[in-house]
């Protein structure tokens, strides 16, 4: 007995001694950050992060293999602690949640056979299944069963729905989903996603400068989910009220309706309808990422600046908008007349953005009220988005006469409260763009006796929106096409009395693809006139470009735009970014909104110290893909486009009431149902459609789909 106790004691002591020596001899210096991180982690060893226990997770974080917010159980608080240990930005500690965010990329091949399998992955292994895209979801609820937190349920339409409260972002659903339809991502990933060439992009989405997910919001609008539709739009465009009214909709050019000999779907009716609905049915403000403590100066409160500020704010930064004018909105306020875009509507949209926590400093002009050095001392980055406000000159004699006005200067007078009396006067507007149209229609509303438009090409070449050209004509504007001003003649007091113009004819196409107008010698004609409004193009002003900016290395092009990286919009000064018209030259409102989001992404990455580059295959702007399949669809014929209600001409030309009215819910739905759902049916293959048309029995889900799809019925 005694000896056994002694032996056990001996073995015990021996073991202890060996371990003590081994611990000394085999001591490995551990990065103190690993220990600190391990202490910060909850120690639950739940494995939710994908590593075997908290210790290995801590090691992975310190080795840079896992993000600082890898811990699922700990949530944002732990992520912030870990970020502090690692010395990185807390901004990356955004919560992650699962969601559908189908871009159509990197997914299943476009073939499918239903083999009776009961699991998405089994089905995927058998090549496909009854896939319908929003989605690309097989609808067999594998993610529902896999979710350890019961956060996913199958919705009424057979697609999984994630409960935001229950979801911890653990990623189990993403791991089991074979088509990666359900994904775990951060808000910023979603907001800052740009189209990629491997994605299933419907043609309208390819052409939209802001890359709005058009089929999705149309789909939601048909189902009556207006608030959700607005959310979808606002992920790409925070100004749907404005765009729903004035956007010329370049997206419509790609609409597949055109391929079957029909008119394109009128996206703006739908966008405006849902946006107007939201204005009258206030929704909860959108989700904002945790505060990053970073501040950004946004110079210029136009569509671009507002768009950038909106996204920067949603990413958790603190943008401050500076604007030289007394109110925000830029060209949307001072360039677009009241009858097209009521200021009340504009104010609502701007207030919605400001309510997120965006600070505004109006009547502050760059170079006059503050300098770049002031900005550098207060802000982490600067965005220059002051637009293009300088009017091009008519380049003819007599331009400084009393009565010769510039387009944008004339248009902003009303908003600035400057009285303009045009009653009974003869007005000539020179130009063919939207500014010219706005000048014509505004002059009429200010009482002008006669408004004539001089344009040196034909109606077909006018860059203005077609609806504007038509509306101006309906209201009584006289079109003097193929005519260019030659000379402006005044009386002895310097007051404009006559305009001399010359007739033109169209010659060879020029660089812009439009036929170059050539003057017909000797065709000079005189016309009596009281006011000439020159609206022949704009370019950025240069008054803000002071010496200190030049010394920092900021360069301007010969068109007064800022020189910056084509994709990231970062200027030669790393902390100065640019976007909108100040970068591109005069362009559409939706272009400014699109570049605003793009520059927000660059600033976000700059502030977090990440690489500014885009993933391979990214399209930063509109890009028509050659592979788009726009063949007519069997069984789908033309459907009449819904027409927009508008005020009668007699009721509208004496005032600035909004002309175009919102469509009724029924008309909106009719129009939305004209959408052929390109890209939302990318897995709906020919075999299935042929089976349907020849009356053969269909596989279950596709059959249901056809039953419920008015466009394919």
């Amino acid at each position, binding site marked *: 007995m005694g*000896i*056994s106790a002694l*032996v*056990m004691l001996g*073995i*015990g002591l021996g*073991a202890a001694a*060996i*371990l003590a020596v*081994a*611990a000394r*001899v*085999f*001591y*490995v210096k551990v990065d103190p950050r690993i220990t600190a991180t391990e202490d910060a982690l909850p120690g639950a060893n739940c494995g939710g992060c994908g590593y*075997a*226990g908290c*210790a*290995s997770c801590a090691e992975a974080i310190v080795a840079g293999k896992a993000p600082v917010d890898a811990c699922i159980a700990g949530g944002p608080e732990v992520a912030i602690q870990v970020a502090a240990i690692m010395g990185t930005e807390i901004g990356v500690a955004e919560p992650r949640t699962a969601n559908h965010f189908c871009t159509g990329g990197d997914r299943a091949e476009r073939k499918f056979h239903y083999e009776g399998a*009961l*699991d998405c*992955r*089994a089905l995927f*292994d058998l090549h496909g299944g009854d896939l319908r895209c929003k989605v690309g979801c097989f609808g067999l609820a*594998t993610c529902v069963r*896999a979710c350890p937190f019961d956060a996913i349920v199958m919705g009424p339409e057979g697609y999984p729905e994630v409960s935001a409260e229950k979801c911890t972002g653990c990623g189990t659903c993403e791991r*089991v989903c074979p088509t990666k339809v359900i994904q775990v991502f951060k808000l910023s990933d979603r907001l800052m996603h740009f189209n990629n060439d491997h994605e299933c992009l419907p043609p309208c989405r390819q052409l939209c400068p802001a890359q709005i997910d058009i089929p999705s919001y149309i789909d939601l609008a048909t189902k009556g989910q207006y608030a959700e539709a607005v959310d979808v739009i606002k992920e790409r465009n925070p100004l749907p009220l404005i765009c729903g009214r004035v956007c010329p909709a370049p997206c419509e050019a790609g609409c597949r309706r055109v391929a079957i000999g029909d008119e394109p779907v009128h996206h703006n009716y739908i966008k405006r309808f849902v946006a107007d609905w939201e204005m009258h049915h206030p929704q909860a403000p959108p989700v904002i990422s945790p505060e990053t403590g970073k501040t950004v100066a946004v110079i210029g409160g136009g569509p671009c600046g507002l768009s950038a500020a909106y996204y920067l704010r949603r990413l958790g930064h603190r943008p401050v908008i500076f604007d030289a004018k007394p109110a925000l909105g830029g060209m949307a306020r001072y360039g677009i007349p009241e009858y097209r875009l009521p200021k009340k509507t504009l104010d609502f949209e701007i207030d919605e953005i400001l309510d997120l926590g965006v600070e505004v400093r109006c009547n502050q002009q760059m170079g006059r009220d503050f300098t770049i050095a002031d900005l550098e001392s207060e802000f982490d980055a600067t965005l220059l988005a002051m637009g293009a406000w300088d009017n091009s000159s008519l380049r003819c004699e007599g331009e400084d006469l009393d009565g010769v006005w510039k387009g944008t200067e004339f248009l902003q007078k009303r908003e600035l409260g400057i009285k303009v009396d045009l009653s009974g006067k003869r007005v000539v507007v020179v130009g063919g763009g939207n500014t010219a149209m706005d000048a014509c229609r505004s002059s009429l509303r200010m009482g002008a006796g006669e408004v004539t438009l001089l344009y040196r090409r034909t109606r077909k070449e006018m860059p203005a929106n077609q609806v504007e050209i038509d509306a101006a004509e309906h209201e009584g504007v006289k079109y003097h096409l193929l005519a260019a001003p030659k000379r402006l003649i005044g009386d002895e007091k310097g007051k404009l009395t006559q305009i001399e113009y010359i007739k033109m004819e169209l010659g060879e196409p020029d660089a812009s693809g439009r036929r170059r107008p050539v003057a017909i010698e000797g065709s000079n004609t005189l016309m009596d006139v009281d006011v000439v409004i020159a609206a022949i193009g704009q370019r950025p002003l240069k008054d803000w470009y002071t010496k200190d900016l030049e010394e920092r290395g900021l360069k301007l092009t010969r068109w007064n735009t800022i020189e910056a990286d084509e994709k990231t919009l970062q200027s030669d000064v790393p902390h100065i970014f640019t976007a909108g018209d100040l970068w591109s030259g005069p362009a559409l409102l939706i272009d400014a909104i699109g570049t605003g989001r793009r520059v927000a992404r660059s600033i976000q990455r700059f502030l977090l110290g990440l690489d500014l580059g885009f993933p391979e295959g990214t399209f930063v702007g509109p890009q028509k893909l050659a592979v788009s399949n726009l063949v007519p669809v069997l069984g789908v014929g033309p459907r009449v486009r819904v027409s927009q209600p508008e005020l009668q001409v007699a009721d509208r030309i004496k005032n600035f009431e909004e002309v175009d009215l919102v469509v009724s819910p029924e008309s909106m739905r009719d129009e939305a149902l004209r959408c052929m759902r390109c890209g939302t049916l990318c897995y709906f293959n020919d075999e299935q459609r042929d089976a349907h048309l020849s009356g053969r029995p269909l596989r279950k889900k596709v059959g249901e789909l056809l039953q419920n799809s008015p466009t394919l019925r």
Partner: protein
Amino acid sequence: MNHTMELVIGAIFINNILLAKFLGNCPFLGVSKKMETAVGMAGAVVFVLTLAGMITWLVEHYLLAPFGIEYIRTMAFILIIATLVQFVELFLRKSIPALYQALGIFLPLITTNCAVLGVAIINIQEGYDLFDAIVFSAASAAGFGLALVLFAGIRERFETIRVPKQIEGTGIGLVTAGLLALSFFAFKGMI
């Protein structure tokens, strides 16, 4: 040579430590959900079991037997195996970091693996000499690994089939383990 072959085949197939002797069921059910962890665990077990088989044999024959205190064998072996595992962990971490990374967290888990203790005791009970004890330990560990990897392969498939709610997870796991054991029963006629 023939005897050694018999020992190896017997340990791997016929008297499989997991499926015939039902030792080491905890890791068998615990780490068999993913093939990756199953392989890691199998590797760690082979490593530790072989070492433990050798050391416990030495302790038995040069410490316990001379004093005639074989009755404290179980206690002594537990202590020795625990120390051994800790030692191996420290050693690997310093000297062979790559192997440490691969076996990682499985090493501490083996401390409480009854398969290790079981094999060490069988070595003594069967009266193996040192060489046989090492061969038997290694072969038993290989058998453990084989069963674990097979089982993990089957369990991975469970994720893609519909299992009745009542027997999801461990329930179906145990049923499968039983069936697997039955199928190993067929090896009985080999020797």
